[in-house]
């Protein structure tokens, strides 16, 4: 039995489950310390609220803890801060056991609920400002979308000053001592979680922090890892710092950054890259740089992608495809905010030349803005073709500088 109930505040108990063995979470995250699925029970003078459930495999632990603290007919509300299966796994069973309970989800969860449960289920919608009452306890809801799913919300228990933050401020870090002042050092897990789950949604993190700032918070009760009670502001400040708007050195001087990434076996795509960079750099206010993907670290790729105002990617066509490092570069966008960055693609080819178009299409799916068609050149570029590369770079740079695009379709 991996469950255990622990008092969090006057009226809140932890009833989550521990998963010390998990090593990969949601496919994308490594979890060296395992994790926990935090669930909480709030008791008021007129009933009980259950805040989230656990992953299905851990239902038994969850129900065991729950039964230690309340009877099913005392449960007045079940709140799901987002529908992801690691927190909704015991929902159906809980609703069967507690038929009087009212399910509360966010507005954005409505369209997803059926897809998840495959059946109709009654619920009530909570948007920012909605409150529910357990007699002497009041819970207020805040819409904090995309952190981590589109339907994510948070809530605040006024009397105990507890923020139920959903996945926000979570860590995949298993430690039964539970509170940040008692567990081991989880700072890397806290940052790792932020980087993988929150970083693509920095704008929404900033909006959520603004909503949280209206409350006096004594305890943050997230859905994974340690409960943060020693100094909640410390963790809020970390999030504020990590999610602050990108301010790069170049931008301080009012300059735009354009990165040209390429790979080349016989220098043809490289020659194109040089001319494109030259063209982009010739535009007033733009600083363009070239990076050979063959020797670029993934870590640096993410930072460069984040910092640049436009990204121009070049690859030769090899066996009907762009080369793997070019795909790897674009895969890094999954960890970043997609904010209408400008993209463009180019490459030298031998006979079919699919690569630039494939990269262009991929960037479209990644929500880049793609103002110029892909540029491809057969084998060794001529003088004239090199000139077209300069113009290509120039055009992208001018658009990055805010040139209005006029077209007819």
């Amino acid at each position, binding site marked *: 039995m991996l469950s255990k109930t622990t008092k969090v505040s006057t009226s809140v108990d932890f009833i989550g489950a521990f998963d010390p063995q998990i090593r990969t979470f949601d496919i994308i995250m490594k979890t060296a310390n395992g994790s926990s699925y935090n669930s909480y029970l709030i008791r008021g003078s007129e009933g009980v609220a259950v805040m989230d459930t656990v992953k299905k495999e851990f239902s038994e632990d969850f129900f065991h803890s729950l039964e230690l603290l309340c009877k099913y007919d005392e449960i007045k509300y079940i709140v799901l801060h987002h529908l992801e299966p690691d927190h909704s796994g015991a929902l159906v069973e809980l609703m069967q056991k507690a038929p009087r309970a009212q399910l509360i989800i966010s*507005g*954005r969860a409505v*369209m997803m609920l059926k897809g998840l449960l495959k059946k109709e289920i009654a619920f009530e919608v909570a948007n920012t400002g909605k409150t529910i009452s357990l007699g002497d306890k009041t819970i207020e809801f805040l819409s904090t979308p995309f952190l981590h799913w589109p339907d994510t919300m948070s809530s605040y228990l006024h009397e105990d000053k507890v923020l139920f933050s959903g996945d926000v401020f979570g860590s995949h870090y298993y430690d039964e001592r539970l509170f940040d002042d008692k567990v081991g050092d989880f700072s890397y897990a806290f940052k790792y979680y932020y980087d993988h789950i929150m970083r693509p949604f920095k704008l929404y993190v900033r909006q959520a922090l603004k909503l949280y700032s209206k409350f006096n918070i004594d305890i943050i009760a997230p859905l994974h890892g340690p409960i943060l009670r020693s100094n909640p502001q410390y963790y809020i400040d970390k999030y504020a710092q990590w999610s602050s708007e990108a301010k790069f050195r170049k931008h301080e001087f009012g300059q735009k950054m354009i990165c040209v990434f390429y790979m080349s076996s016989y220098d043809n795509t490289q020659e194109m890259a040089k001319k494109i960079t030259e063209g982009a750099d010739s535009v007033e206010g733009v600083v363009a740089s070239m990076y050979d993907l063959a020797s670029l670290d993934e870590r640096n790729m993410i930072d460069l992608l984040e910092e640049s105002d436009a990204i121009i990617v070049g690859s030769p066509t090899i066996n009907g495809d762009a080369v793997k490092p070019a795909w790897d570069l674009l895969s890094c966008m999954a960890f970043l905010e997609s*904010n209408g960055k400008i993209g463009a693609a180019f490459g030298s080819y031998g006979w079919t030349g699919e690569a630039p178009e494939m990269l262009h299409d991929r960037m479209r799916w990644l929500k880049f803005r793609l103002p110029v068609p892909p540029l491809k050149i057969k084998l060794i570029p001529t003088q004239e073709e090199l000139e077209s590369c300069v113009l290509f770079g120039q055009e992208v740079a001018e658009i990055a500088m805010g040139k209005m695009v*006029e*077209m*007819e*379709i």
Partner: protein
Amino acid sequence: MVNIFLENDNINVKVPNTKSLRYVATKTGASMEFGCRVGDCLTCVARVKSGMEFLNKKNDKEIKALEILAMNVEGLRLMCQCNVEADEGEIVISYGF
């Protein structure tokens, strides 16, 4: 042709009657975001700052979906549900919410 100004991308584009905003996105390379494309996910929400009358009318499903996001849905649209429905006019769109 209807003139559409895509504010976020600084693009001014002339679009013939009946064309969808998805088509406009593909053709212009604008950074308009789409997800499901069937009016479920709300990814493509946009504010039509002027010229709403040159687009098709919202149906009930779109209105219901938008009401999840805001009390007042008047200027809002799901871009995946929009087509140009006029031969002439000026539309200004700012995507995001």
